[in-house]
C-alpha cells in the first residue's frame, strides 16, 4: 500500500481503504509525545491494542496523570467496549426469556434510565444503561472537558460502574457461553473488575462474577 511509503515522521492515521490488519498498526507513541487533548484515550487504547490481556499494564497510569481523568477515560472505554457485549446479547438475550435484569436469583435490578425506574427486560436494561452512560459521560454539564474533571463529577463514576457491571453479571449467570467467548476476546470483565477494585469504585460484595480468582493466578505471570 502507498501508506507504507511514509519514512521519516509517522503519521498515525487510519486512512480510507486501510485494511483491518493495518488498523492502528503503527509504532507506539509515548505519552509525553501525545500532545492532543485526547492523549489519555489514545494511551489507553494503545495499551489495549498492544496486549488486551495485560490488564495490569492497561490500568497503569502514566506518571503524574490526573486520577479523575484517568478513571473517566477508562470508563468511557469500558462503555464503548461493552457495546460489543450488548451486540452479542441482542441476538441471544430475549425479552421473553430474560424478562427482568437479574444475575443471581436474589435481586431484580430496576432500570434507572427512566423517569420512574422500570423493570426493563435484561436486553433493554443493557441498552438503556449503556445509552444513559453515554449521555452522562458526554454531558457538557458534568464532563465539559476531557482534560480536567470536577471532583463532584468524578464522584458520579461509581454509580455508572455499578450499573454497567450488571451487564457482565447478567451475561455471566444467564448466557455463560456467550460471556466466555466475549471475555476471551476482550478480557473486559477482568479489566473492569480490577479497575473498580483498584480505584474503589464498587464495593467487593457487588462484584459477583467470580473472575477475581482467575485474576489472582494471572497477576503474577501476565500470560498471553
Amino acid at each position, binding site marked *: 500500500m502507498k501508506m507504507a511509503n511514509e519514512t521519516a515522521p509517522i503519521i498515525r492515521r*487510519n486512512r*480510507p481503504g486501510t485494511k483491518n490488519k493495518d488498523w492502528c498498526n503503527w509504532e507506539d507513541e509515548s505519552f509525553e509525545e501525545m500532545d492532543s*487533548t485526547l492523549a489519555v484515550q489514545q494511551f489507553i487504547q494503545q495499551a489495549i491494542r498492544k496486549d488486551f490481556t495485560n490488564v495490569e499494564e492497561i490500568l497503569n497510569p502514566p506518571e503524574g496523570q490526573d486520577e479523575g481523568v484517568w478513571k473517566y477515560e477508562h470508563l468511557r472505554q469500558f462503555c464503548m467496549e461493552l457495546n460489543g457485549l450488548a451486540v452479542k446479547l441482542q441476538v441471544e438475550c430475549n425479552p421473553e426469556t430474560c424478562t427482568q435484569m437479574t444475575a443471581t436469583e436474589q*435481586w431484580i435490578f430496576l432500570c434507572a*434510565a427512566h423517569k420512574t425506574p422500570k423493570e426493563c427486560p435484561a436486553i433493554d436494561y443493557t441498552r438503556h444503561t449503556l445509552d444513559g452512560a453515554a449521555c452522562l*459521560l458526554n454531558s457538557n454539564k458534568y464532563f465539559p*472537558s476531557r482534560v*480536567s474533571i*470536577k471532583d463532584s463529577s468524578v464522584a458520579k463514576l461509581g454509580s455508572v460502574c455499578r450499573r454497567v457491571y450488571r451487564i457482565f453479571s447478567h451475561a455471566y449467570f444467564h448466557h455463560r457461553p456467550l460471556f466466555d467467548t466475549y471475555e476471551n476476546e476482550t478480557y473486559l470483565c477482568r479489566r473492569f473488575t480490577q479497575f473498580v477494585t483498584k480505584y474503589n469504585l464498587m464495593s467487593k460484595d457487588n462484584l459477583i462474577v467470580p473472575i477475581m480468582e482467575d485474576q489472582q493466578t494471572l497477576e503474577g505471570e501476565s500470560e498471553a
Partner: protein
Amino acid sequence: MIEDGPGSQHGGQLGPGSGGLGMVTKSQQDDGIKQRPQYSMPGILHFLQTEWARFEMERSQWEVERAELQARIAFLQGERKGQENLKQDLVRRIKMLEYALKQERGKYHKLKYGTDLNPEDLKPPTFDKENKDDHIDGEISLSTSSGTGTATWRQGRQLLRQYLQEIGYTDTIIDVRSARVRSLLGLQTQSGDSDADISQSVLVNGDQPNKRDNQGKRAGLKKIGNLANDNALIDTENAVMTTFDFLNSGNVVEDEEDLSDDNEDGIAADDEAEERLERASMKLKGDNEGLTGLDETDADTEEALAEFHFLESEMGGSSEKHESSSGEDEEWVVDQRHISELKEQYKKERKGKKTRPTRHALQAMLASLGGEDDGFTAGVGDGQSLASSGEAREDDIPSGGQISYARKPMMGLQDDDENLDGGLVLGELAGLTVNNEADPVNYDISAPKEGYRKTWSAKYTLRSHFDGVRALAFHPVEPVLLTASEDHTLKLWNLQKTVPAKKAASLDVEPVYTFRAHVGPVLSLAMSPSGEQCYSGGMDTTIRCWNIPKSDIDPYDSFDPNVLSGTLEAHTDAVWGLSIHSSKNQLLSCSGDGTVRLWSPGIKSPLLNTFTVDSEEGVPTSVDFVRCDPNQIVASYTSSNTYIFDMETGAQVLMLETKINSDASGSNQINRVISHPTLPISITAHEDRHIRFFDNNTGKIIHSMVAHLDSVTSLAIDPNGLYLLSGSHDCSIRLWNLDSKTCVQEITSHRKKFEESIHDVAFHPQKPYIASAGADALAKVFV
C-alpha cells in the same frame, strides 16, 4: 492608525486598487460581462449577492480584529504601566535602604569620632515631588508611595480589566491577581487585609472618620492630600474583599450542590435496594405488601435516578443558582481550583504570547493597516481564509507558504486545554478564521453582529459517541441526522430535541436512538432518499441495512430487533465507502478487500455487480454514482488513480488523470471522490492537501487547489451544486464557492486524536444545515 474607522477599511476594500488576490473588483466584473455576454441576469445578481456577502463578512472580521488589537494595545499599555510602577517602587526601596545605611554609618561615625558626618550625606533621598513630605519615616513613604502610584496604576489596571473582560475573565480573577501582585510588591499582604477589615466594619457602622483615624494610627503621619488616593486604594481593596466574599458564597452554593449530589449518591451507594427488588421477599409477601415494597424503593430510586435524569431535573436547580449569585455569570459559581486553573491558563497565555510567531503576523497586520491599499490586501491574504482563494487561482504557486506560516500556531495551540484555550487562541484566530467554534466564550466577540449574514456558525454539538465519528448523513427532509462511529454504534439525532444549555452559543443534542450490530468500528454511512432506511459499513466487513426509527421515538424504548432489516455480506475487509443512488434502490460500497460492489438492498440476491482493478492500484477509498450519467460510477484508489466504470458491464470507461496531477512523492491517496449533482465533473479530496476537479468526458483536470493545511478527508456538495464543503485533518472545515473556486468560510471544528481530526462533512439536502464529524467523538451542526 488602528483608529481608522471601519468605514475607511471598507472603502479600501471596495476601492478599485484593492482587487488583489482572489478578489474580483467591480471593474473586473464589468470586463467579465463585456467579454462574456452569455451571463444571465440572475447569475449576475447571484454573483453580486455572494460578493456582497463576502465583503460584509470581511468587514465584520476586520472589525472584530480591530477590537481585538485595541484591547491588546490597552493590555500592553497596562502591563507597561504596571512594570513602571514596580520599577519605581524598587528604586524607592533601594534609596530607602541606602538612606538607612547612611544613617547607621553616621551613628557609627559619631560614636567613633564624636563628630557628625557631613550633613549633606544624611539628607533623605528624594523621589517624586508628591512624596516629598513623607520622608520622615521610611514606612510611611512606602505605604503612601503606593498611594501616589495608584492613579496610574489604577489606570493601567482599568485597561487590563477591560482587556480581560473581553476575553472572558471577570473582575474576580483580576482582583485575585492584583492582590497577589501587590503582596509580591510588599505593599499589601497584612496591611491590605486589615485595611479591608477595617473598612468593612466601618461600612457596616457607617462610621467614616473612625476609619480615617485607624488608618492614620496605623500608618503614622498622613498627608491630607493623599486622602483621595487612599480612598481609591481602599475602594479597590474593598472590591477585592467583596469579590473574595462573593467567591466564598459561590463556594457554599457549589458545596451544597455537591452535598446533594453526595446524598443522591449516598443513598444509591448505601442502600443497594436502589433499582433492586428483593425477589425473595416479593415472593413471600402478599401482593399488597409487594406493592408497598415497590413504593418504598421507588422513593429511593427516584433520587438515584436523578443521575441519569439530572440533565432535565437539575436545570431548575441551576437556574436558581443563577439568581442567588446576584446576576453574575454562573461561570462564577466555581471553586478555587477552577480559579487557579484559570490563573494558570492566564499565565500560560502570557507566556505563550512571547513566543508565538503570530505576533509578527499581527504586527505585520498592524503595519499593513496603516499602509496603502496594496499592504492592506496583503494583510488580508496573510491572515484570512481568502488567502486560499489566491491559492485556488494560482494553483501550487506557494502562497501556501504564507498561509501555513500564519496558521500553524493555531493548530498547536488547540491542544492546550479543552475549554479554556479559546481565549488565547482567539487573538490569532480572529484574523484567521471566521469563528473559532472550539470555544463558545468567544462568541460575543467573533460572531458578526449584522442582522443579515451568510456565515455559518456552530449551533448544535452532538455528544454521545465514545470514539471518533467516521461518517454522518442528514435525513432528506427532517432536521435529523445519523452518525457512525468507531465506538461500534450509529446514532440518530433529532435537532429539535436539544438539551437546554447554559450558554446560548451552542446547543447540545442527545441521540434518540443507538444502532448496535456492528462488531468493531463503523466507517461509512448512507441514507436512503426516502429517509426511511440507512446503510452502514464497518470494519467487520458487513454492510448493515437499518429501518430508521421515528425521530420522536423515546430514547429508552424497548429493543426492536426489526430495526436491523438486513446485512449485506460479500466484502472480506473493512467497508470504507458507501453511496446511495438518488432514485434507484441501489447502493455502492468500497472495501479494503480491493473491490467496489453494487447492491440492491432488500431483494433476494442483492449483490448486482463487482468492480475490480489491477492490484497495483491498491484499494478503493471512496466511491460515488456519477450523478448526471445513470449508467456510470466513479471510484478512487489508494494509488491516487480514479476510474469511471460502466455500471452494467463493470468495465472501466475512463481513467481520470488524478495521479499525474498529484504530488508524486510518497503517499498521496485520494480520500474522497464525489460527483457533481448536475455537471459531468468529479471532485477529489487528496492526502496532499488538494482538492481537484476533473472532466468526466475527457478525464482531464479542470482545476486544482491547495484547499487545506493538511490532508483533505471529506467532501460534500450542496444539492444545487453551488457550494462545496471540505473537511480536513487540519481541524477545519471550509466552504467553497464552486463558481469562483474561492473559500467562502473556514470554521475550526474539531480536535485531533492522533493525527486525525475531521472524518466527514455533509450538507442537509433541503435545510440550511451543514455538519462535520470529528475524531474527537463529536459531531457538529452549523446553521
